[in-house]
């Protein structure tokens, strides 16, 4: 287990995402603060797939949300394509996420009133990108849901719902996909299928992937593997 030294990476290609000295703490109900990130830092390069493991409560999800600009950092800098992005306004952060990030969570969070296809179209609708809709519809086929486009989420199985979530996360063709226990809610067979799908689609589309998981065997299937311990990130590859 080694800490990441950026100086050693001077000859590497420019990272897509670089985290420098991230700090994040939560106030405890009884007073005091619980430090989740203590100077965490790492880099992620274009097209890479990486997993992030750690024990429960180690702050994996918090780190992911900070990287996805869903949560504010206490200190530290987050660079995306060389530009610091964590200081942006809430509105600019939303615009940034729309253009650059895709998310998959443990729960699919599909909108029950919308069909599978309409759920996949959501990012395109928000971005006002009608041109991406045909590609987004193609993604639904790629995840194996051809013929089920007009079904509502509650008419799909758990695995199918998560496939829709995968297609939705990639609909806007984001350079970086962040997943948080994306297969944690599925049985091992379905989880395996979804992970295969995720890795193959990201590879096919050239999307950089960072997945939080508590399953070590799943984590080993990614090109790189990071661990979060005591608020610091360790390269386990």
């Amino acid at each position, binding site marked *: 287990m080694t800490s990441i030294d950026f100086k050693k990476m001077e000859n590497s290609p420019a990272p897509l995402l670089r985290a420098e000295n991230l700090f994040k703490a939560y106030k405890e109900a009884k007073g005091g603060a619980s430090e989740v990130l203590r100077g965490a830092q790492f880099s992620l390069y274009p097209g890479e797939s990486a997993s992030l493991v750690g024990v429960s409560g180690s702050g994996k999800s918090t780190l992911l949300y900070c990287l996805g600009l869903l949560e504010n950092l206490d200190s530290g800098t987050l660079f995306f394509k060389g530009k610091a992005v964590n200081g942006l306004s809430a509105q600019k952060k939303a615009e940034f996420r729309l253009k650059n990030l895709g998310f998959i*969570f443990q729960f699919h969070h599909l909108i029950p009133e919308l069909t599978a296809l*309409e759920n996949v179209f959501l990012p395109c609708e928000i971005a006002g990108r009608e041109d991406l809709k045909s590609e987004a519809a193609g993604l639904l086929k790629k995840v194996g849901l051809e013929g089920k486009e007009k079904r509502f989420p509650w008419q799909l199985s758990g695995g199918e719902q998560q496939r829709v979530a995968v297609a939705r996360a990639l609909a806007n063709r984001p350079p970086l996909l962040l997943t948080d226990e994306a297969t944690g809610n599925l049985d091992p067979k379905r989880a395996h299928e979804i992970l295969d799908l995720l890795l193959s689609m990201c590879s096919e589309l050239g999307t950089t992937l960072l997945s939080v998981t508590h399953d070590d065997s799943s984590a080993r299937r990614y090109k790189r593997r990071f661990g979060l311990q005591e608020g610091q990130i360790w390269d386990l590859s």
Partner: protein
Amino acid sequence: MLSLGLKWLLGLGARSPEAKRGLLRGSLWIAVLSLSLSLAALGLTRSLVSGFEATLARALGNTQGEVLHHFGRWVTEAEEIQILESLEPGPNFSEFFWTTQGLIVGKTVGRGVLIEGRHSRNSEGKIISSHLFKNEPSPEGSTPRAILGKALADVLGVKPGDEVRILLPGILKSSIPFRVFETHQPGLYELESRFVVLDNPSLMDWLKQKSPESLNELIGDSHGFRLFFDESFKGLEGEEKLDAWAEGWKFKVANADSALPADLSTRIQTWRDMKSTLFKGIGYNKIELSLVLGFLSLVAALNIAATLIVLFLERDREIALLHAIGFGPRALWAWVLLLGSLLGAVSTVFGILLTPILGFLLSRLPFLKIPQEIYNIDHLPIRLNLPDFIFLSAWGLGVSILVAATLGYKLSRMSFSTVIGNRRA
């Protein structure tokens, strides 16, 4: 995005198996209905007050004339004709009058009243009766005629055809008999209880006076004339037109080059000036009632906001997901504003449509008949004015937009990240 949003939040054209969501949508529509009803109540109340105001204005105009013109002195017969010739186009007819205080005695009791004698002139300048006497000439040598207010006639215990005696103290040594031609009911007790109009031609005939000015020598020196206009000048709608007319004519009368006598001082009043306190009171009533019912509709709009809050909180994970995708705070604020405004607009349209429907039903339903002998009308005088509808629309939309904008702002500043995953808050 709009159609997807409407499907998502309002379930329009969408299917969802969750009964809870159906219930929430149902409560949202109930909130919309309550805003519609409160707006309809506001519209109806304003229409009712407008109706009473207009009915009263019309009744006063028909009885007292739309314009009252006081002269500083009694005018001669020649001057009366001269004045008639000076009139701007507008009035249908005019009536000269004198007033004095007197005593009227009926069958059993007497009353001190303000007595008014009226006459008009035809196109040849000949004296004729007031329009209140339906242009019927009095038979020569018969008892002079009088019209009494209904309330006064009831107090005196007289009815049309009966005889009353009128005493003008300090003017005539003895009382004069008058035949009650008709009882008059303008719908305003204050006026009805002391309304006495005498028919000048028949009085002149009885007193053997040939002209109004010679009658004046006997009776007193109050004098002026009333102008009665066509429908377009009547009631609230004609008020501005009437003011403009009166202003123009006043200018002409006051002009040095006018053909009218130079010493003829003038004071022009419209019906609203004559009863300014009453109409101001009605106006204040309208404002007070609008405030009370306006607050009621504000509460109904808050009801929509409260239901929207529950609707959004029920979908907090979906909002969090949209937020993660890139649905920014500005977009969320705009969404809530749009949705609230849309519901407000629907409520306002319903409220506006309900107002005339309820108004029609209320004014026509038999159990809401009102006593004609008191109000001069037997149904609620609903009057649907454009300004009232504009007020209603502006208020309905205004409170909805205000409430939605505030709610949207609050929601847009909320952090939904804690509800999206499976981690600690």
